[in-house]
């Protein structure tokens, strides 16, 4: 699974790596792994700095790509990227509007044991209200792959945690989201139904590494 980041978010990469390690422990021939590509849209000058700091942190970044801002989407498509991670809201939105699934990186340092992926249930329940319909298909297939990966591990001690949050709508719609995700093969570990309550305080407790679905939302509400 290709995941691409424009940012040196070492925490997320370490967590992704941890998941790969655990998957390979279970099955050395495992093919469903995270493949991380670091993409730099700044000038070429940055490139050597990025490469050296990546090896400094011991991060196994599979590939480096240097692209310009204008060519970003094409680069992603050409490289068969399933998920694009960014801290830049506009960049992520732009990319998702062209059909490539993107997610915002969690801003706070999240020193957690596992990779915490947060899904926003509102778009799952009411797809007609999805602000970014173009990437909906990509979202569905990604969540199915994620579910497969999650299924390799047991309930406790998993290096990957799936967290569902529904912001508007009551408990019934959260139930629908849970069932929909399950039918796509994705089992959720934690579920929070906010029913209109402010998201900020809950998000700062949840500390996701990144957020999927719901178009692109502000992580600090």
């Amino acid at each position, binding site marked *: 699974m290709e995941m691409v980041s424009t940012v040196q978010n070492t925490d997320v990469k370490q967590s992704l790596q941890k998941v790969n390690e655990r998957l390979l422990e279970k099955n050395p021939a495992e093919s469903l792994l995270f493949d991380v590509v670091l993409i730099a849209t700044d000038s070429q000058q940055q490139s050597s700095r990025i490469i050296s700091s990546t090896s400094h942190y011991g991060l196994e970044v599979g590939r480096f790509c240097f692209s310009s801002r204008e060519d970003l989407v094409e680069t992603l498509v050409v490289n068969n990227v399933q998920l694009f991670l960014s801290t830049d809201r506009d960049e992520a939105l732009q990319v998702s509007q062209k059909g490539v699934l993107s997610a915002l990186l969690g801003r706070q340092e999240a020193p957690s044991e596992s990779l915490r992926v947060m899904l926003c249930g509102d778009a799952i329940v009411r797809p007609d209200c999805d602000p970014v319909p173009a990437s909906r298909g990509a979202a569905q297939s990604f969540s199915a792959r994620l579910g497969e990966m999650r299924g390799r591990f047991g309930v406790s001690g998993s290096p990957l945690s799936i967290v569902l949050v529904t912001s508007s709508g009551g*408990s019934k719609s959260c139930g629908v989201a*849970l069932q929909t995700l399950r039918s796509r093969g994705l089992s959720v570990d934690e579920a929070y139904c906010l029913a*209109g*309550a402010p998201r900020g*305080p809950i998000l700062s*407790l949840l500390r996701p590494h990144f957020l999927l679905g719901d178009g692109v939302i502000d992580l600090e509400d």
Partner: protein
Amino acid sequence: MREEQLRTETEPREELRSNEAERGAYSSAEHHRVTGRRARKVEGGVFFPKPENAVTVAVSSRVLFRTELEQRVFEQKGVEEYLRYQIEHENEPFAPGPAFPFVKALETVNARLRELYPQSEELFDIVLVTYNHAHVGIRLINTINHHNLFIERFCMTGGSSPIGYLKAWQTNLYLSADADKVREALAEGIAAATMFMTEKLTEVSESQLRVAFDGDAVLFSDESERIFKAHGLDKFFQHEQDNEDTLLDHGPLKGFLEALGKLQKKFYAKGQRLDCPIRTYLVTARSAASSGIRALKTLRAWGLEIDEALFLAGAPKGPMLEKIRPHIYFDDQMFHVEGAAEMGTVAAHVPYGVAQKHNQPQKPGARK
């Protein structure tokens, strides 16, 4: 918002009914009730109060519903089997637990408040806070729907501590079956109490919420209890007399009584004092003639009205509670909690203060 309408669709109830008969855990009147699903629509939007305006009551799944069977599966066979069991039985709603009548009564108060103040967010907001795994989520939501409970907010933390979420929800009261979690909440300044399942349950009012509180170490601090435990009854009386005009310090549930009082005043403002759907009681071992005076003066100084004060002068609390029939009674001493339960009152233990060093539950399995 089409959501509220979804609830009134006919759902496959047949399966639920036959399971109910098997479990025989609650009256058949439950599923014949046809309540108008609360369509809380305000100008087209669904209306959920902001946490800071509402009186937030967080309940765990183990006190809202009966989950003893599932608990046993968890304890005997581990978490994977427990979750498998829950998913298998997803369409079987849980039976009501000890906090259920209390939650229903909160909803009754909400209905009355909405009649009088349709735009107000000063309501009870009931949040399900459980450290259950989200795999149990669908069964819990099915159960909520089955019992026509209006619980729209929840946290299923999948094993991590719910305490942070309690604070984020600005929780006014937390009810759980787990004494450790309750102690954690109290340490964070959140009113909390442990609830236990009882076999005997006396009927409680369906139109009036009744909440009863012990005095020392619940509404008030445990300072007087300390004197009593260290120096005996005479010293206690002397101390109370000497300090009659000194206010007692506040206890962990003072804030909740305050929140109830605020809602009561909303009814009074509309001329509904006699018909108020909230009634509060102080049930204390203090005596009316002596040590009780300090308690009343303290309440008055805090601006808190309590509807009835029952001074037992050390007499057992069970019979008195059986007369007033509260939906919930808060006490810091397990001895009283058990005594109340024996007579069918739902009592909740507040693990606070000096009495905890002397607290030993008399019955095995009482703590859970």
